[in-house]
């Protein structure tokens, strides 16, 4: 077919360009995902070295009771945990935009979930801030995706800690109603009064009152996406006495 016939059909040329562009876009999206996967993996490995080495150092009997060492170890662990959470969120955003987050239900004990959350929150907590857990249900085994539930709670607790400042007080409350787990993460921060809470759940969404605090606007987007995947509900409400509560409900068997 000659050149002339191409020029006679500009629509076909345009369609051809569009198809090339589409292919290029798909290729670039694949590259971006691959880059994120490789970076996440390559960042997590040295983070393990830093985290475990800091822990080993704090356990050394020579430094036992040394407040300065404990302070610096805590600071290293807190930074590693924050960085890990950031890597996790970037990776989760990539997966969420490609519908790549998968659900995997299994039987687990509530105490195991809470123990995991307490450890994670303990690492995220800066000096002067506090975290406590209130359990309003008895120990029981449930079936659900423990790992995804834990991811959502980690994000909500991290937000609570970050947006309530150095003297922050964050609380996790767990209730169980029929076949539903209800988690409430409350803080004493600036709250969400006057905020467009829907905007906060959007990708890169930031509130007016949260402008001064660190945050890329990924966490709540990821939390909301996972909540949808779990068939649950997530909402932010202003506390009467200040601060904010994130209420996360998720069905389990």
């Amino acid at each position, binding site marked *: 077919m000659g050149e002339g016939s191409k020029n006679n059909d500009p629509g076909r040329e345009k369609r051809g360009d569009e198809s090339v562009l589409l292919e290029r876009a798909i290729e670039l999206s694949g590259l971006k995902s691959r880059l994120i*996967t490789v970076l996440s993996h390559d960042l997590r490995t040295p983070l393990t070295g830093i985290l475990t080495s800091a822990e080993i150092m704090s356990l050394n009997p020579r430094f036992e009771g040394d407040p300065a060492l404990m302070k610096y170890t805590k600071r290293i662990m807190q930074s590693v945990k924050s960085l890990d959470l950031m890597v996790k969120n970037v990776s989760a955003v990539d997966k969420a935009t490609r519908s790549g987050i998968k659900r995997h239900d299994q039987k687990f004990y509530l105490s195991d979930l809470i123990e995991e959350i307490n*450890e994670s929150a303990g690492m995220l907590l800066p000096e002067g801030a506090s975290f406590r857990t209130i359990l309003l249900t008895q120990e029981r085994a449930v079936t659900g995706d423990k790992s995804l539930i834990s991811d959502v709670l980690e994000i909500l607790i991290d937000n609570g800690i970050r947006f309530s400042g150095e003297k922050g007080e964050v609380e996790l409350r767990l209730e169980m109603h029929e076949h539903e787990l209800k988690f409430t993460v409350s803080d004493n921060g600036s709250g969400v009064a006057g905020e467009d809470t829907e905007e906060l759940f959007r990708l890169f969404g930031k509130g007016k009152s949260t402008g001064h605090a660190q945050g890329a606007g990924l966490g709540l987007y990821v939390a909301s996406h996972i909540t949808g995947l779990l068939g649950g509900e997530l909402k932010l409400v202003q506390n009467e006495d200040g601060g904010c509560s994130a209420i996360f409900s998720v069905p389990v068997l």
Partner: protein
Amino acid sequence: MDKRKVLIVEDDKSTREAMTEILELEGYAVQKAVTAREAIDTLLTQSFDIILCDLVLPDLTGFSIIDHVIASHVGPRPVIIIVSGLDDRDNMRNGMELGVDDYVTKPFTRNELLKTIKTQLAKKEQLKEEMEHGSELKPQGAVTGTQRALNRETFLFLADSRSASFVKIAEIKCIISDNNYSKIFIKDNKRFILKKSLRSWLGVLPKSIFLRINKSTIINLNFVLRVEEWFNGSYMVYLDGASEPFNISTRTVIKLRKDIFVRKV
């Protein structure tokens, strides 16, 4: 008591050293490998209680090591835990399907690592004990009860030296005794060999669907395709998915459900 032996397969030096220190402080005897090839060579000459295996290695993937361990162990195999920076669910599922016991995502804390190892070792110990004492039959949800009557919806935890899983009673196709052992054939072609007599199986299986058809065989009636009366007067029962028919005593043919067709050949 001898120290528990751990093989750490990790190419990142600082992670490898930190893991070694954590485990040695807890009294484990640690051996290290940087590549999959090195790990497989080590596994050919030494045995371990636990293998902590990274997935992304310089030569092969960690799955190749796991494949080797699963394929080469005839007796109880070591606890295998994947320790990886890949948090992809597909990787986790692949590992679990291969027979991996647990998955720890980097960056992990000392507590997470030690807790995972202890939990998996305790599970392994429990399985070993149950197998040695012939009490491997544990209905899910029952506190004790090797002799508890089961119904078709009950799950049994079955474990032998090759695999372990929950199996729905209704999915047991047949059980064939072999001296003190019994071979349990499951719907999806899985098979377990347990130290348990046919008599003790009869005590727990629901009589509504299980029938002893000869001295050494119990069958699930829901898997019966047909019964044939052979020219010599003997009867043979064909089960769905079984390669050979089973001999069934004349007395038992009478006990068969009325809807099972007996034909002469």
